[in-house]
């Protein structure tokens, strides 16, 4: 009889313990996901020699940060989560143009929606930098295209050729 009671109590205790741990995990999702994001991002930044792995980890970190702001959009780490998400997008090794746009979106969330954040100035600075990099890239492309254009002489020859044909 006593053994039976001890057994029942132990089971009950275990159920309570497991459920309270599960509950605690649930309510702390905003900070747990954020912390996991930071850890994963740090790990990714050390993988510069393995770009595939780096991309995989950065995408994983983005998922953690996104979960943190989904669970609790106005938490005390929300601005930092958006800022670090932008950092992850900027460091993704492939699809640079698309990922830069996603980074800008994250910076804009901080500027427009969390205007007292300590990350606002940095976010503005980063958007400016991305824009100016894009402009430089575009200018370089244009000048490259110009150098590829056929010279007047070759055009002349081509016209001659066409006319003779």
């Amino acid at each position, binding site marked *: 009889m006593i053994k039976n009671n001890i057994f029942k109590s132990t089971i009950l205790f275990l159920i309570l313990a497991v459920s309270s741990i599960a509950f605690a995990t*649930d*309510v*702390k999702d*905003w*900070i747990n996901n954020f912390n996991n994001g930071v850890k994963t991002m740090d790990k990714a930044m050390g993988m510069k020699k393995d770009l595939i792995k780096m991309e995989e980890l950065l995408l994983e970190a983005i998922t953690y940060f996104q979960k943190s*702001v989904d669970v*609790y*959009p*106005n*938490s*005390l*780490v*929300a*601005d930092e989560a958006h800022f670090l998400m932008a950092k992850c997008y900027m460091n993704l090794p492939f699809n640079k143009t698309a990922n830069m746009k996603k980074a800008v979106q994250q910076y804009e*969330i901080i*500027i*427009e*929606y*969390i*205007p*007292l*954040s*300590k990350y606002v100035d940095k976010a503005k600075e980063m958007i400016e930098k991305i824009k100016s990099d894009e402009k430089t890239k575009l200018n370089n492309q244009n000048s490259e295209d110009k150098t590829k254009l056929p010279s007047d002489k070759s055009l002349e020859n081509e016209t001659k050729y066409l006319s003779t044909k």
Partner: protein
Amino acid sequence: MQRKLILLLIIIFILFSCSKATISNLKNLQEKKLDSSILKDRIICLDPGHGDTAGKDNFRVGVSGEREEWINLRVSMILKKMLEDAGAKVIMTRMGDVDVDLAYRANKAIENYADIFVSIHHNGTPDRDVDYPLVFFYGKAPENPASIDFAKILQKNFKKRLNFKHMMSGFSLDDAGIYSDHLIYKEGFAVIRKTYPYMPGAIGEAGFFSNPTQEQYLKQKEYNELEAQAYFDTLVEYFSKGLPYAELISPEKNSEVSNKISTILLRLCDGFGEHYFDSNSFVVKVNNESAKYSYDLLTGNLIITFDEPLKPGECKVFITARNLKGNAIHPKELKFKVL
């Protein structure tokens, strides 16, 4: 020797008294800075959040049974009296523990031409460790500068007046900011969304009732008075910087005009009967596009000019600028129809 000692003690006593008097004078000076007569004849809409939810939900309640709507109402009623004593006209969206429609709350502020809409709330979250003050504003910060001005002062006063010493370790009050309602809902919160075209507004969340320590404070009338004082100080500080505005002169607001018009005339006032604004702070848009304009600070006339005729349909003018005290014009809805 004894005489010298007595003389020294007398000197120390005189110096101590003087320093005490100085501190007291400084305090008086600080109080004098906040001249509440500025509130006279101001129309302030107070919106105690929620109401009569005891039988409907079980999440707007702290661990010891204190309900959010009760705290909201207590703080609002204390604030109402403080504001009325200072000569303000106070519009209340609810006076008892009753459920009031969100559109009704906003309409009450609009119909009474309120100068500002202040929604008083307290926060709750499943994580009971969380506690910090926050203020919500509607939409994007650059499009709602007057509400941002108010929200910043309110957050500053929450931090100054209220107790958050029990905040989670690893965080500081500096981390607590002001947040757009768009982070929570795509459309924002109904009360500040609906009042946005008419007046600045904000939702104050002075603490988390879900945090057991904060709940114990929020239950006390003395603590509610401190919170009401934070709102009061904010309103005094905000209004003391003037309430600048812009009005549509030609074409008139909501009028119908031909597409041959080549200019729009607005008149700006800085809130002190003059027309002084920071020249770098102007944002002038017509139908969401930046517009060419010229401003005359002597008359307050702002003229928008177009290179091409306006397209037929609704024409919306967005304007904001900061007066010399730093308060921004609230970009009220200014529109007319082009035929």
